[in-house]
């Protein structure tokens, strides 16, 4: 688990060099039409579409839970505990009498929130640092890269457990901790992109025309570097969700009564040989989230690859 729990795997299909080379060439084109083609390519891919549909359904189920779920996630009636799936409780009830369908829906919401928010945190740290290193080079680059190395070298699981023990459990804390441990990939990617791009002719031209470094960064570099970063972000979301599951399994996750899929899987372990539904449904929900985002990520990668026109 240490592998998946806390370190976002470097995505090699975005080998910084190859993609950057290719991207540089393609991006001389008009951005809008490139996006347009990418969009069309994305829609043409069956798996990506399946992924998109899965994610949309899960988002409706999760974020729509306050409207759609049979009960609130905190409502429990001990008298109704330990029921198997039935007409009145489609996914049964858990050990203290929560309606399990409601728990799974709200748990999906928690997992999605953790996934999105942790990646936003990672972006907020990783992208500016990567841009700084890639644009400025020199000392800034040196410092950022040492920081990246330190973060990479520190055992992610240990780091996460430490921080969770210091901060205490909770949705906000786990978002912060996962964000803090997963920005490195994005940072490296951004930096590598900029390294290539900043020497491109049109950037040189802009610079010659007197544009400031900031405006070059925002107007020229960021839009052109963003494609592989978007792919990486898409794939970072399920990784973050997985990390939450792993930490919850170790008991340093999210506080009751807020449900999380990872915690539900962990809590089900002592019951699962009799009450199979307690393990099955949250596991399937996690798998679907992972599946959806992975398919979308793969699709985006293919779609954003300009050689696929």
């Amino acid at each position, binding site marked *: 688990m240490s592998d998946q729990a806390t370190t976002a795997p470097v995505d090699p299909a975005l080998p910084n060099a190859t993609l950057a080379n290719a991207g540089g060439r393609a991006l001389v084109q008009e951005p809008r039409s490139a996006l347009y083609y990418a969009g069309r390519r994305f829609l043409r891919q069956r798996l990506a579409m399946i992924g998109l549909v899965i994610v949309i359904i899960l988002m409706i189920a999760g974020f729509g839970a306050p409207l759609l779920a049979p009960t609130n996630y905190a409502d*429990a*009636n*001990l008298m109704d505990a330990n029921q198997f799936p039935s007409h009145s409780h489609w996914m049964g009830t858990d050990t203290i009498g929560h309606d399990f369908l409601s728990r799974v829906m709200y748990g999906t919401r928690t997992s999605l929130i953790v996934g999105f928010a942790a990646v936003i945190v990672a972006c907020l740290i990783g992208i500016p640092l990567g841009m700084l290193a890639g644009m400025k080079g020199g000392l800034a680059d040196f410092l950022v890269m040492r920081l990246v190395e330190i973060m990479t070298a520190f055992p992610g699981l240990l780091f996460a457990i430490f921080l969770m023990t210091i901060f205490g459990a909770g949705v906000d804390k786990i978002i912060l901790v996962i964000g803090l441990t997963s920005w490195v990939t994005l940072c490296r990617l951004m930096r590598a992109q900029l390294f290539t791009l900043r020497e491109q002719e049109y950037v040189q031209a802009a610079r010659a025309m007197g544009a400031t470094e900031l405006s070059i960064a925002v107007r020229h570099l960021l839009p052109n570097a963003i494609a592989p970063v978007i792919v990486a972000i898409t794939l970072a979301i399920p990784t973050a969700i997985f990390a939450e599951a792993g930490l919850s399994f170790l008991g340093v996750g999210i506080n009751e009564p807020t449900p999380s899929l990872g915690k539900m899987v962990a809590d089900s*372990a002592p*019951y699962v040989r009799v009450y199979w539904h307690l393990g099955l449904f949250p596991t399937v929900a996690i798998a679907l989230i992972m599946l959806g985002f992975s398919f979308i990520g793969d699709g985006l990668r293919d779609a954003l690859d300009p050689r696929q026109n």
Partner: protein
Amino acid sequence: MSTESSHPLKPVSSLGETRLDRRTLMKSAAAGTSLFLMSMGLPAGTTLAAQSTGELPADAAPKEEQVFRIASDPSIAKTMNFYEAVYQRPGVADLFSESLVRLTKDFEIVPGAALKWSSSKDGKTWTFELDPDIVWSDGNPLTAKDYVRTFQYAADPEHAWDFTWFWSGDIVNFTEATEGKAKLEEIGVKQGANPHELIFEMVNPAPYLAAKLLYSWPISDAALTKYGAFYNSKPETSVTCGPFKLDKWTLDQEIVMSKWDGYKGKLNIPFQTIINKFAAPAQSYTIYDAGEIDYMSDPAPAELKLMEADPSKKGEIFQGVADFACLYFFFDVTKAPFDNLKVRQAFSHVIDRDTMQKQIWGRQAKPAPSFLAPGFPASDTEGLKDIQKFDPDLGKQLLSEAGFPDGKGFPKLTMTVRGGGTPVEVATTQAYGAALKQYLNIDCELQTIDRQAFYADLNAKPTKILFGWVSYGMDYFDPSNMLGVWLTGGRHSWSNPAYDKKVKEATTFLGPAAQRIKMFQDAERILVSDVPAVFAYFITTIQFMKPYVKGDALTADKNGIAAIHFPGFSTADTVLEGLYVTKDAPKGRS
């Protein structure tokens, strides 16, 4: 990592970590009385369990098949010696030396290494006569010197023993020695007129002393000097005066011990080999089911259900009471809103123990309307059951009177729970959190923190936990032990002079036993009425034993409880005398 009960003895635990085994219920205070009389120096019982003849029953397997296998948590296996590290011994630690006394399954104190004992008139000076036959495997006799050295080691500030509280304020100069204010030689454990006479000098009259000396496994003076405190962690340096010797200790995998033929103590144990395998607690049922171990305790709820559902396995299930642990929700009564008695009372009326029993606990726990479990001396669950009874309407009304009608204006609440709890603990805390919402409309978040952090925060003065979940189990069979945890300056911030006075008076009271019990009962009534805690359940531990292990230890005690008794599998009890492997056992178990 995690312990269900706070009891330091883990021998019976299958899963090492913590789950302890529990033992028999006693319905009357008679046990307390007999214990009390015995500890007053009356002729100590010679009521050792039967089977002491050395003959195996007719259906017993041959000697080489008398192998018994249990499992414990690999992360709790530092040492075999209690006086080295109480909380870090594996399941089979206490078989390498002789405790001064033993506990029978009827909770009577009987001779162990001490043949008899007596006290001075004032109850402060106690003399124990050691069995002169007992020797260590290095050839030295077991003498008072070993015990004296053991207690000095316990008090040594350089050793910083994790259980010094046990003798602090009890044995003369013990506290002073732990503080470095008295020399180790000055503590009140000394050799008497001859090497086989051991004297304890107590600060106060100590009618409970013999019971408390259950925890008196000596360290070998010679081995401690020669090899250091971990001499029992390797066969090469291991020294025993108990019934077993260490054959092999493969770290993280298993401990193998076999009967030591030089043993001169009185325990007569049919098992020839005991194997302690290491497995995470969550795995013990899997390996029990696969036939890799013969005994386990504290299964997960589903595992118990699987066993109960299988007619061929029903006979393998035993229900005991272990260390009479009580699990409870506690408040920091010095802080708002729990400085208000009405708030605390409101909380105490919304715990639906009967439904919890039905839906969560099953046979693994019993409702605890008070602190002392049935069977423990001075227990009064019947008399106290209405004080914290389930009555949500009364709870609502009290909360309203306290200024929070329908929970309005009640501060955001966090319940702090220790990590690594059993499934029963997890479900109970979650259900109570939900009940607070359901009946009192109070939002309560459950914060689980790891045990190191939990106990650091709980024990901080002032405590850092406003509202939390914890347990307390006995160390010796006397009410002073359990009730002592609620004394001012103890574990919790609750402080009640009337309670303190009652408990302290009763503890050192040398008069009639019944009167002493009554004093403790009065104290418990004060405790339960002032609601420093909402008491939830008493553990009634579930044990699985393979059908080919039989014996007197698994038959009902005088209160009808048939299960492995506390402490279990050590020289401080008689459990191992009453167990043997029958001919039905698979051959070649290892």
